[in-house]
């Protein structure tokens, strides 16, 4: 997933980097095809070039040798809300076919079955990033018909589109899973466009809680070559924090 996600990051893109797999994918892209990937962290690091894989988005290695360190007010107001973030990158506990994401609660908000961490910066990233990448493992429990709580809005909320709601950012463009990749069609619905070698569309449907649209031109998703695998395992995440 980290490898496939990294391919969505182009050299020179300004990326708002989240914790976990997004972090790994960004650092992989930077070590391979996108050395000029410009990484911004909600902790305040701008143009970070961490020497080690940052364990948290506030790791000291993000500060040392970054181009700028600014207040969180500047991150959210002057960079994100002002429209300077090209790519946002989120994961979650639930996602629906419109790319709405839940990281708040499983069950009822007032009386939750499981209390999750909450939004952090996810909601505003989903609102403002020019394009949003979502990275999540597939299962019927996580790819749901309707999120218990919409923390971060996707393409369509209670029947209303982003345009109708006046939302500035572009919304999700790519949903990267462990079985394949979905893109979003003109109505804002996720369409399976790639599967990993050996994965069938039926297997993807079996791990998805909604009736999955499948592209007519389904492709095979690219997998990492040996060099990339070595890079991931030996240099980028030797402690296997995310792999």
């Amino acid at each position: 997933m980290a490898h496939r996600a990294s391919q969505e990051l182009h050299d020179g893109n300004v990326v708002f980097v989240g914790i976990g797999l997004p972090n790994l994918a960004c650092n992989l892209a930077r070590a391979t095809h996108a050395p000029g990937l410009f990484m911004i962290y909600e902790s305040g690091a701008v143009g970070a070039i961490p020497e080690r894989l940052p364990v948290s988005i506030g790791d000291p290695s993000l500060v040392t040798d970054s181009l700028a360190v600014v207040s969180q007010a500047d991150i959210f107001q002057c960079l994100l809300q002002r429209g300077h973030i090209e790519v946002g990158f989120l994961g979650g506990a639930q996602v629906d076919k419109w790319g709405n994401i839940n990281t708040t609660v499983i069950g009822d908000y007032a009386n939750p079955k499981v209390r999750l961490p909450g939004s952090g910066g996810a909601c505003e990233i989903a609102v403002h990033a020019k394009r949003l990448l979502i990275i999540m493992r597939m299962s019927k429990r996580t790819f749901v018909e309707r999120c218990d709580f919409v923390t971060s809005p996707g393409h369509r909320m209670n029947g209303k589109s982003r345009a109708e709601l006046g939302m500035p950012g572009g919304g999700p463009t790519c949903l990267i899973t462990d079985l394949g990749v979905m893109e979003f069609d003109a109505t804002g619905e996720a369409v399976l466009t790639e599967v990993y070698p050996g994965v069938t569309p039926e297997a993807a449907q079996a791990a998805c809680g909604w009736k999955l649209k499948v592209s007519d031109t389904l492709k095979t998703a690219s997998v990492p070559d040996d060099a990339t695998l070595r890079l991931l395992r030996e240099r980028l995440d030797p402690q296997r924090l995310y792999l």
Partner: protein
Amino acid sequence: MSTNKLCSMKEAISASVKNGSSLIIDGFTHLICFAAGHEIIRQGIKDLTAIRLTPDLVYDQLIEAGCVKKLVFSWAGNPGVGSLHALRRRGEASSPQRLELDEYSHFGLLSRFLAASAGLPFWPLNNYFGGDIAQANPAIKTVQCPYTGQTLATVPALHPDVAIIHCQRADAEGNAQVWGLLGSQKEVAFAARKVIVVAEQIVPTEVIRRDPNRTVVPGIIVSHVVHEPWGCHPSFVQGFYDRDNDFYVKWEDISRQPETYQAYLQEFVYGVKDRQEYLKKLESGLLDKLRAKPRMSEGVDYGY
């Protein structure tokens, strides 16, 4: 008017934090003052409204110790590792002692500090369209732009009774300098009614005056200054010590069960009288391992 505000952590907390106070121990992964949280637990302060974007392990410990009535937050987890288990136990439907939660996104809660620090009653932000955060929290309202007609979200100003701000260095009047991640320290300090500055180093005022652009909190808004080296462990202080990532990982196991959690508090919080005793209890060699390898910036010229 030079006033010396230096005192011990014990004095600063007992003079400022009362039962029922609203409190923020600020810091965004960086500069989280665990020493202050532990002292609050030792003093047995109750019914706190605990405020922070990212209630870290130290807020979870305050919850486990029974100090907290209400949590105001935007992301509650053990970053990169797992959950905050005391919070989780008190946040789910099955919990007998439910905590009051007042929940935002980062930008939303930060905006509450921005409003308060600027002396305004509210702050506008272009956010919360269509999602459920604003539905779940009635404090999030809207305002119409008088020029474009556009509807924007608003949050109300939040003035904590006490803000605790950890910094690399401060003078005895509380002029505090910070580098590396700034989080929302300036905003939180100006938002609060009372400010406690905790510093790794207490320096003569001349050191502050030699580099005035580094001052994040001016002493005129500070009431107490505490000298507490290693006051942030297991969090970190840029240029002083690294984050104790191993501890954050181990915490997942310690905190999962109430028994091991309480045993930890007994040993490392109730069982010591202050930060110095806490540091002595850490495994030998740990502080040397965490101590920062120097990476000095160069000075700049303030002459004319």
